[in-house]
């Protein structure tokens, strides 16, 4: 993997074993994200965008399984293959190094816990020692140097896994620790531009509006300062005005936190506005990847071209792509787009085109540009 890459996915293969047959969901996906970059992943519903993002965190739900390829991640300077990680290690990455934000925030928040509790949970999972230290400091400053509570915290820091520690932790009220967490939660909510964060923190998910819930979820995702954020269609369900606010927010946060963002969407407008680079997916493959300006100015793959042409423009006729997305249980042989492609050649239905760099930093998988190498 190159020096300045944060995440690289090579030839990722994912299959789902269902009653109706084996679904070839991902057929060799290639993706690269640099630190601090916003990569847009665009494609129609069902093309595998979400599955790709789940694979990065080893969260592909059964009956699915990752069956091929590599996922290289640069964790604190070390390059690791996520596929080879043990369960405990991948859990440390989830929510901390790589965090996810989802489409319908209120469905992805637990309805029976307050916002405060859930964000606090994330903080406690990944930044526990930091908050224990803060709590100890606060107690010392308040003059309670030898209180029982302080001793409990110190023990939790030093011997977190001993049985006595666990019993003590369970039965102590831990007021100061909870207060520290609450303060941080309020700060986080404020940083995502939620007005009156103290009140919102105590609310339940169903009491929040869509926009507010999404901000809260973003706050939760950023709470442990991840180097990468995966956003799976976070604004699709929101009003256009709220969408614009959230996009702004994401842009601001990128500046503050300097994390990379994998932004998944089917909305080309959002891509154009937000992203640095774009990856286009079709039926389980990434067919084209380029800088955002480059992609809109000179798209190479026939699918990308057709997508851009199909954007409704006033005064012009509607242009749609003929045919339908193929079923992934029995996908077409060769290039999966061949039966809908206006440039179809004989080789397209026989050989799958390889994903190669045709121009500088502009990758395509199409026989029109070689693809046999």
């Amino acid at each position, binding site marked *: 993997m190159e020096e300045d890459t944060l995440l690289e996915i090579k030839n990722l293969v994912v299959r789902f074993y269902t009653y109706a047959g084996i679904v070839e969901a991902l057929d060799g996906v290639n993706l690269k994200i640099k630190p601090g970059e916003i990569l847009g992943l665009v494609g129609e519903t069902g093309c595998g965008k979400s599955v790709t993002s789940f694979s990065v965190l080893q969260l592909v739900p059964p009956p699915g399984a990752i069956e091929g390829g590599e996922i290289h991640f640069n964790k604190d300077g070390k390059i690791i293959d996520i596929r080879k990680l043990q369960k405990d290690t991948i*859990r440390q990455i*989830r*929510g901390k190094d790589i*965090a996810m934000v989802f489409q319908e925030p209120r469905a*992805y928040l*637990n309805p*029976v816990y307050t916002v405060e509790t859930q964000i606090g949970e994330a903080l406690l*999972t990944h930044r526990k020692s930091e908050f224990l230290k803060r709590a100890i400091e606060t107690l010392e400053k308040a003059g309670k140097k030898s209180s029982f509570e302080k001793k409990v915290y110190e023990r939790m820091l030093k011997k977190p896994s001993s049985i006595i520690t666990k019993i003590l932790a369970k039965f102590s009220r831990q007021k100061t620790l909870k207060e520290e967490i609450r303060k941080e939660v309020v700060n986080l909510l404020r940083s995502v531009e939620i007005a009156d964060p103290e009140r919102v923190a105590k609310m339940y998910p169903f009491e929040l509006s869509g926009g507010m819930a999404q901000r809260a979820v973003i706050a939760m995702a950023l709470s442990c300062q991840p180097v990468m954020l995966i956003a799976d269609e976070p604004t699709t369900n929101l009003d256009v005005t709220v969408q614009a606010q959230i996009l702004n927010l994401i842009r601001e946060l990128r500046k503050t936190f300097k994390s990379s963002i994998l932004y998944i969407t089917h909305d080309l407008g959002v891509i154009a506005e937000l992203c640095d680079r774009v990856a286009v997916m079709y039926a389980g493959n990434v067919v084209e990847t380029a800088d955002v300006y480059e992609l809109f100015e000179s798209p190479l793959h026939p699918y990308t071209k057709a997508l851009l042409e199909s954007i409704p423009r006033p005064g012009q006729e509607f242009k749609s792509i003929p045919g339908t997305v193929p079923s992934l249980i029995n996908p077409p042989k060769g290039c999966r787009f061949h039966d809908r492609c206006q440039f179809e050649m004989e080789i397209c239905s026989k050989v799958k085109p390889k994903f190669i760099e045709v121009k500088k930093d502009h990758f395509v998988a199409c026989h029109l540009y070689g693809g046999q190498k």
Partner: protein
Amino acid sequence: MTSLPAYIARRLILLIFVLIGVTVLIFAITALVPIDVRAMLYVRNVQHTNPEQLTRIAEQYGLTRPLYEQYFTWLGQVLQGNLGFAKSSQQPVVQAILERWPYTFEIVIFAAPLIIFIGIYLGVQAAIHKDGIIDHATRVLSIVGWSLPSFWLGLILLSVFYGYLRWLPPGPLDPDLLNFRNTSPSFKRYTYIDLFDGLLNGRPDITLNVIKHVILPVIVIVTINVALLIRVMRSSMLEALGKPYTFAAKAKGLDDKTVIYRHARRNALIPVITLSGMLVAGLLGGLVITETVFAFGGLGQWAARAALNFDIPAVLGYAMLSAFIFVIANLIVDILYAYIDPRIRLV
């Protein structure tokens, strides 16, 4: 408003309506009975009554008055604590109930928690290991348990553990201990529940004896009723495990145990709690059979004998008691529900 007290107030009002409705239903059943049969209930000496006397008795006790008038007279009596006279046990219904409820209580206090905890535990395990051995085994065992007639299971257990082995006899207490409790002046019945009184009087052997007698009835009740709880817990848990917030919890980096127990199960328990409340309240129905088989001397057995003797006030008194307990249990469960799931407070 998502405040708990407001919700409770609303539920209380609804509860009163249902309670009134229950009294109407109970009264309607008494009205079903032909007038001469009802008149007979007031007669001590059944053989020596002729039809004329019956008509007089009927008029005397207001059985010929219009129904709504009878209802209010009857309701008035009920509210004063008079539920009629049980001819099968020759005592007022209320007294019969007061004498016998401790025995029923002794069974329920063991059976109910066992049903709930075993049901929740097995249901969650079956859901987590879906299609595994635990899942299938639990499923089969609980279906079989639900299919067994309670009297049959009881009789079999009794014939094995009592008839053959002489270990676990029927009845609420050994006869000599029973005698002691009834006659000895040194034994003070603080709670009237032998299970507790034994300890309070410094006679733990009495408490142990109660437990010895209660084992078989509790096994019967638990075996039969646990199936329903397991099934509901399992499907509720499966649904919770498939929800987006469970997925999000995993994506946050939480370990499996936390995801399963803190996130999924808390949501999955919600419908189970409602069911538990109804199940416990409904135990009063199943106890009729079980108490009869084990001659436990509680309310169920009393109601069974009353039914056999066509003792209508007794059976209806038992029915009304069961309904009241059911409605109140439902209220408690609803409050618990609202405490756990804040969304319901808007209803």
